[in-house]
């Protein structure tokens, strides 16, 4: 306070934030998210145990019935369970955002001359750590149970990145619920209602041709099915097809739609 403050009327200021500043602000907010995870590691319980438990459970329950034995089921179920687990994890993003926004610190973020999207984008970005943990553990479980991906490690890594990108995109939907909902538990409720049918009415766990025709129509349209197929192609054959393109385009569309409306809802909220 020893230095004199430059008078307000003499400052030259701009009324918009540049793209570069938005990225920098978002990264700083992501750093904040990581620090919070470091302070409360117990919030990683779900991403640690869910992949382990679900992978074991589904593989041994459905393995014999669907593919004859567990070993033959693994190439089918691991990509399915990976997508299901990681996307389910992204619900927590919305719930935590809701809790976070109720704290006074969000008032300060709003009063700072930072990009409006940064507090949201940063929180979502930090959560990719959670998706990464879930992805690595699911593949690790698959490997322990006997999955030997034909596609090789490189393609498995690509599949992992694909799932993380898509989950990040989908987390914008839950972030939107997080911003508009009144309580954290209602975010959880709405999100589960949306996500449960989407993940189960897909090809994640069973072959599509065993389903009735009208359901097949939906399952084949379901973006989750395309993502699961893209991951299977990468993991089992090391190939990239239209499903991969469809998944990435879908992710981009979700972000393009939900990021602006989420930021807008966030700005409105007082």
């Amino acid at each position, binding site marked *: 306070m020893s230095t004199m*403050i430059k008078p307000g009327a003499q400052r030259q200021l701009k009324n918009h934030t540049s793209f570069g500043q938005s990225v920098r602000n978002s990264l700083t907010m992501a750093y*904040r998210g990581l620090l919070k995870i470091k302070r409360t590691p117990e919030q990683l319980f779900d991403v640690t145990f869910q992949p382990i438990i679900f992978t074991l459970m589904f593989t041994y329950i459905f393995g014999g019935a669907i593919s004859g034995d567990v070993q033959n089921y693994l190439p089918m179920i691991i990509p399915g369970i990976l997508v299901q687990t990681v996307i389910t994890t992204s619900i927590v993003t919305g719930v935590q955002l809701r809790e976070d926004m109720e704290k006074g610190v*969000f008032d*300060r973020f*709003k009063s700072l001359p930072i990009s409006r999207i940064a507090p949201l984008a940063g929180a979502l970005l930090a959560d990719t750590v959670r998706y990464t943990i879930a992805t690595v553990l699911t593949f690790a479980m698959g490997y322990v149970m006997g999955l030997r991906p034909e596609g090789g490690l490189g393609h498995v890594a690509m599949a992992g990145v694909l799932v993380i990108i898509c989950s990040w995109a989908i987390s914008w939907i839950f972030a939107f619920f997080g911003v508009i909902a009144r309580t954290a538990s209602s975010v959880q409720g709405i999100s589960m209602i949306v996500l449960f049918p989407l993940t189960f009415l897909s090809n994640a766990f069973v072959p599509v041709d065993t389903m009735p025709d009208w359901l097949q129509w939906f399952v084949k349209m379901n973006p989750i099915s395309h993502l699961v197929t893209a991951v299977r192609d990468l993991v089992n054959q090391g190939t990239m097809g239209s499903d991969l393109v469809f998944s990435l385009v879908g992710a981009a569309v979700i972000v393009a739609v939900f990021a602006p409306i989420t930021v807008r809802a966030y700005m409105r909220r007082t």
Partner: protein
Amino acid sequence: MSQIKKQPLQSKDWAIEAHGLVKVFGDNRAVDGVDLQVATGSIYGVLGPNGAGKTTAIRMLATLLRPDGGSAKVFGHDVVKEPQIVRQLIGVTGQYASVDESLSATENLVIFSRLLGLGRAEARHKAEELLEEFGLTEAAKRPLKNFSGGMRRRLDLAASLIAQPPLIFLDEPTTGLDPRTRNQMWDTIRRLIQSGSTVLLTTQYLEEADQLADRIAVIDHGHVVAEGTVDELKSSVGTSSLHLRVENLRDIGLARQTVERLLRVPTSISAEAAKITAPLASADRVTDLLIALREAGISLAELSVQKPTLDEVFLSITGHGVEEKSAPASAKSIQVEGQTV
């Protein structure tokens, strides 16, 4: 530069200019046509009880809330049309500390510094500097959960000063602090002014406004009911108030008449406690009053002179106390000299 030149000259002198600000929540008009003009380099106090609309007004000026009516400018920049510019000119310290509970003091300041565009090393340096200045160095690494209320407020204020904003909003900066911590906060606020900042603070305490503010606006039910310098306001209230407790409850009516006749002011009365409260403009008159009471055969159980409280400011300005139920029927509003609204 061209933008600055275009502005009319007088707007340069005002850090804040608000005209007819309105904010409605449901059917509650929280802020109902507030006008404020805050001169650059001054401390401006907004005084009012809980729920008067102080915080809502500040939140609108700080771009946190969109006004439903009226307009406001900060250093000539409209808070609705140019919010991002306004945000570069202000620091906001909330009623509830707006810092991150789960992080340490250093981490909080580093993150805010980084968000304001400081580099990694600069941010760390700035955090250390501010922690040192606010006496928080020892607690720098501890999580905020273990911070006392005073430490939290100081950190909150430190966070508001990172960008050296020319205008600082302090929303009840000392509510809930012990007297020693409150004095420290006051010193800090005074130093801010010396460095050229403008401060708008809200408070429930007349003493705080008295100690710090150059000008005061009194807000009640979303309206500015009085505005002026501390001296103007005080002269309208009387510098202190006289409290009398009569020995015998049935004397209270007569005692009150005597007080009102001799001091020529409205009084408030609490019958259960047999207590009469009156603004006291001149201590000299008390002598006359006491003689008159003795002559009337009224004996007093207790007599004290107290500095005016917010309640008395309200009594004299609005004609009612802070709480509706304490408003005495006979207390008529008196004309406030120097009132500009």
